[in-house]
């Protein structure tokens, strides 16, 4: 019973770290319509910055400042946010999918850096001994698990409330207006690039925060945790939950993480050890198909926000018809 409870707590804590990442992505995509293909990279930056700031000093590795976890989390968020800001500044004035290409490239380079900058990142072996919040409780597994879960619940709640407040503020309304009808918003004197850049950077901060929290919860990180598969997972969570909707993002994270865990253990139970790698690739095929199918069949996700994901074509038509009805008024 205790085992089951502590497994439940472990599972939920892990799912909630994804929920934080997912909330960050939701600000970028759901609210601002910015497509980030490098989620794994930004999560990795958050995790590694926090790990370097908080781990005890190690010979032969830069970092190990032994700072408290909270400072690490803040640093991780800032690191990822700054990187998002730079990439956004580089591409947001250009075509919409240049941002996607640039974030994809950034994730590739971050992965390379994790592997090759051994003096900073520990190379392929990663960084261990990342201090866990409430490490002092490690002797009592039940209490320890509950405390960790509590921290993550607080973090998710804080992110949720802040982001919800942001999206309901005038700032959030402008952001959505830009996504729906850039020209109209521009006509009101709003600079789309500035708003999008802010949203992208804040989203990156939240993503980094999620990565940092995850690192401290697991206690050990390595480049293999941050492969493109992670990006796919987070995207699936957001799309399934419904982009644009903060609660959907959290629900999607928990749901997809559960599906992932269940199908993962099914794979290891059903397939002989030699075939498990193949079976795992089938699992990813299904994720890819599911992602495409949701886009096709239920583009607003399970808990979607009404009126999202309109096509630019229809937007243009609306402008056209708006012009025409305006003309009628003046001429009537």
């Amino acid at each position, binding site marked *: 019973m205790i085992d089951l409870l502590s497994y439940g707590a472990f599972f939920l804590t892990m799912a909630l770290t994804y929920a934080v990442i997912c909330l960050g992505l939701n600000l970028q995509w759901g609210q601002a319509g910015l497509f980030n293909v490098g989620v794994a990279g930004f999560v990795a930056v958050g995790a590694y910055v926090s790990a370097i700031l908080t781990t005890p000093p190690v010979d032969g590795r830069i970092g190990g400042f032994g700072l408290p976890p909270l400072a690490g989390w803040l640093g991780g968020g800032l690191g990822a946010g700054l990187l998002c800001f730079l990439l956004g500044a580089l591409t947001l004035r250009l075509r919409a999918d240049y941002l996607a290409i640039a974030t994809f490239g950034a994730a590739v380079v971050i992965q390379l850096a994790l592997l090759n900058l051994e003096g900073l990142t520990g190379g392929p072996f990663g960084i261990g001994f990342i201090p866990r919040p409430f490490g002092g409780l490690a002797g009592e597994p039940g209490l320890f698990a509950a405390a960790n879960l509590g921290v993550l619940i607080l973090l998710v709640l804080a992110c949720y409330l802040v982001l919800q407040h942001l999206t309901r503020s005038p700032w959030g309304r402008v952001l959505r207006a830009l996504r729906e009808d850039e020209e109209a918003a521009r006509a009101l004197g709003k600079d789309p690039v500035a708003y999008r850049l802010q949203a992208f950077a804040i989203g990156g901060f939240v993503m980094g925060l999620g990565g940092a929290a995850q690192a401290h919860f697991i206690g050990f990180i390595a480049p293999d945790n941050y492969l493109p598969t992670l990006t796919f997972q987070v995207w699936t969570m957001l799309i399934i939950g419904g982009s644009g909707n903060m609660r959907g993002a959290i629900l999607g994270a928990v749901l997809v993480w559960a599906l992932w865990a269940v199908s993962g253990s099914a794979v290891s139970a059903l397939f002989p050890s030699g075939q498990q790698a193949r079976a795992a690739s089938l699992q990813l095929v299904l994720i890819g198909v599911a992602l495409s199918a949701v886009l096709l069949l239920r583009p607003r996700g399970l808990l979607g926000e009404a009126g999202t994901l309109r096509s630019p074509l229809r937007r243009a038509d609306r402008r056209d018809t708006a012009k025409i009805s305006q003309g009628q008024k003046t*001429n009537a």
Partner: protein
Amino acid sequence: MSADILRVSALAAGYQPDLPILNGVDLTVRDGEFVVLLGPNGAGKSTLVKCIAGLVPVHSGAIRLCGEEIAAVPAHMKLRRGLAFVPQTENIFARMTIRENLQLAAQILPKARRAGRIAAMYDTFPDLAAAPGRRAGALSGGQRQMLAVARALIVEPRLLILDEPSAGLSPLMVAEVFERLRAINGAGVTILLVEQNVRAGLEIASRGVILVEGRVAHDAPSGDLAGDPVVAELYLGGKAEAPA
């Protein structure tokens, strides 16, 4: 009694299903006619011709070209049925040369006729023949309109529809474009022209149709419309001209 080239009946159309811009338009264009489509801004003139060309979805009603229903025919098949449309803006391929624009337009013709039709366009529009290798984007406003008209005429359409070819041109250029249109009509091509300037439109066309709020408000020979005191009051900005 000449045959109907175009017959639009009870046409309702718009970009969105719940927002019709045309509310039951009836319009007939007979063989050899030169009809001008007039009306205030936002009356639906552009929408009507775009709809006939297949760029705006039809909600209900019929569009017949030479007796055949074409409302459901995709835009790219309409040219093959003899309907050519020249949009108001972006009506040439600016990144291609003049020659390529014409070659592209001639592509739906049988191979044997292509070269002859392109040569015929160079004869009709000597400006284009001067430098066929020039990028179309580098042409002046008037030359662009000539190229756009040539692109449409190359396939010898039965009906030529033009959406405000005079927009943005100097008065001198407008006069020249209109002169060309008159000659094209004289050569037997039926024309439906959208025009903002009521006086100029009625001067060149044989019949005028005035569209108001998505419906046909007036449909009469140009002379009658120009002399109609109501029309004059509403659309000509003042007193009627002396009846012709």
